[in-house]
């Protein structure tokens, strides 16, 4: 059971880490202490004709300064409203919600594969590992260089890039970078569009990399964010569904039925 708390945060800063995204830094000390990488918040939106809160990954949290960062692209009315918040304005937060990433053992290399804004889920993870001196590799894929989070936001990690149009790094899908990165000591993390997740799972199967060692941060439309509406169900291995908001958003990839994930 998720114990969710409704909080009022204040916008400290709004910026554009890349041309295609907004970064919102909020001040809410208790939430910043409670927030763990991979968890999410439901952000209140007061745009015309919208209703539900919008789920966003905690990009990073700084408990000492009471700050939480969110990185997102504007895709509709809710994100447009949030992306127009200015310093000093309030934003309502419900959370932190769901299960974050499980921390890999100290001798492990974390490989984070992200598509587009999926990278937002990994900023805090990379930071935390950098502080502990642990090895992290980021495989970052996007349509074009405009959609890439600058590598200086991922300090301490080895960043390898792929773009569909070849404007930066490898030309083509980010999954092409996987074979060289998946070694015996690796724990794989993934976040991005469904098609990318499916491609990563296919690669892992081909390469014999066990899905128990793949953690996925799930993103699917959500209603409540706390397990009451049953709206965020995703197909579970062995039948039935798991709830992205409650069983996830971070789960190991072996818990999902990837055949039924196809086409969602």
């Amino acid at each position, binding site marked *: 059971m998720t114990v969710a708390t409704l909080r009022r945060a204040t916008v400290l800063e709004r910026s554009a880490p890349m041309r295609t995204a907004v970064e919102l830094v909020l001040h809410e000390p208790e939430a910043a202490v409670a927030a763990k990488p991979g968890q999410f918040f439901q952000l209140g939106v007061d745009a015309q004709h919208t209703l539900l809160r919008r789920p966003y990954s905690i990009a990073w949290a700084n408990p000492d300064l009471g700050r939480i960062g969110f990185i997102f692209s504007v895709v509709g009315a809710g994100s447009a409203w949030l992306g127009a918040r200015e310093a000093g304005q309030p934003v309502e937060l419900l959370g932190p919600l769901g299960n974050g990433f499980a921390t890999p053992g100290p001798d492990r290399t974390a490989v984070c594969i992200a598509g587009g804004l999926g990278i937002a889920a990994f900023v805090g993870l990379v930071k935390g590992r950098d502080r502990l001196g642990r090895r992290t590799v980021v495989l970052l894929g996007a349509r074009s260089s405009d959609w890439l989070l600058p590598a200086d936001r991922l300090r301490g990690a080895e960043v390898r890039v792929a773009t569909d149009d070849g404007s930066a790094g490898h030309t083509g899908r980010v999954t092409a970078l996987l074979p060289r990165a998946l070694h015996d000591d690796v724990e794989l993390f993934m976040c991005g569009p469904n098609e990318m997740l499916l491609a990563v799972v296919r690669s892992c199967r081909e390469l014999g990399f066990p899905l128990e060692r793949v953690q996925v941060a799930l993103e699917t439309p959500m*209603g409540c964010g706390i397990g009451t509406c049953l709206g965020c169900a995703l197909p579970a291995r062995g*039948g039935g569904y798991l709830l992205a908001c409650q069983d996830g958003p971070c789960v190991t990839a072996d818990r999902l039925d990837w055949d039924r994930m196809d086409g969602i």
Partner: protein
Amino acid sequence: MVASGTFGYGFDAPQVDRSALGAMVTKGTTRAARTGNPPVRIAETASGMLNAIGLQNPGVDYVAQTYAPQWVEWDLPVIVNIAGESIEDYVEVARRLDGRPGVAGIELNISCPNVEAGLQFGVDARLAAQVTEAVRAATEMPLMVKLTPNVTDLVGIARAIEAAGADSISAVNTYLGMSIDVARRRPALANGLGGLSGPAIKPLALRAVWEVASAVEIPIVGVGGIFTAEDALEFLLAGAAAVQLGTVNYVRPDAARLVRDGIVAFAADSGLPDLGDIALRPRRKAVHV
């Protein structure tokens, strides 16, 4: 009270002060456990949301054995919303809940397809009456029947349900609708169609309550798009004896308290000692209850 499907079985909702509620209605519960529909199951629309959850629930035995004993500890009546695909299904679910400590009553969700008849119980006055009568015979507990608004003759169906022995009527369930994902050129919901709820349906639900209130004597519980105390007061003025809050629970976890406080403040401000009498068109006294 909180509406079915928007509060689970009462264990996950955050920060909700149960003392602000008059009752809780659970998620639709069936004879056997159900895994529900494939995703995508929900989509937001202008001032509303569509859902096609598919009655995912752990089944009546789990509810009776695991949840009901916990409800006993609560000082809040819990009404179990029940659903089925045949009259036997409904009767069996009601029978297994009958007399369970912790279960205060039953809400009959008749917006489910009847497998034999191939249409929903709630769209046909004869079928609606049959299922109400059968469940009535299976339980002594208070029985509330929830109308589906996706019908032509809502008033006729409400009358049939009253005659079949329902103690009260809740109106209404969601309105059938759909949304299409233009970029992907396919329906937004995997199920194609879904039930619309939220502020978008409030005027429609209000009309349903207004019409049913003039046709039956048993109490009516208004539901559909209520977000504020003023919304709730509209339903009371239209003839409802109580209201249920649904979608608003996802948006404002403290909605029940705000609505209740607002109603109390309205009653005090307007010097009304008894809100039971505020209906615009006086209702005749109920015969049962």
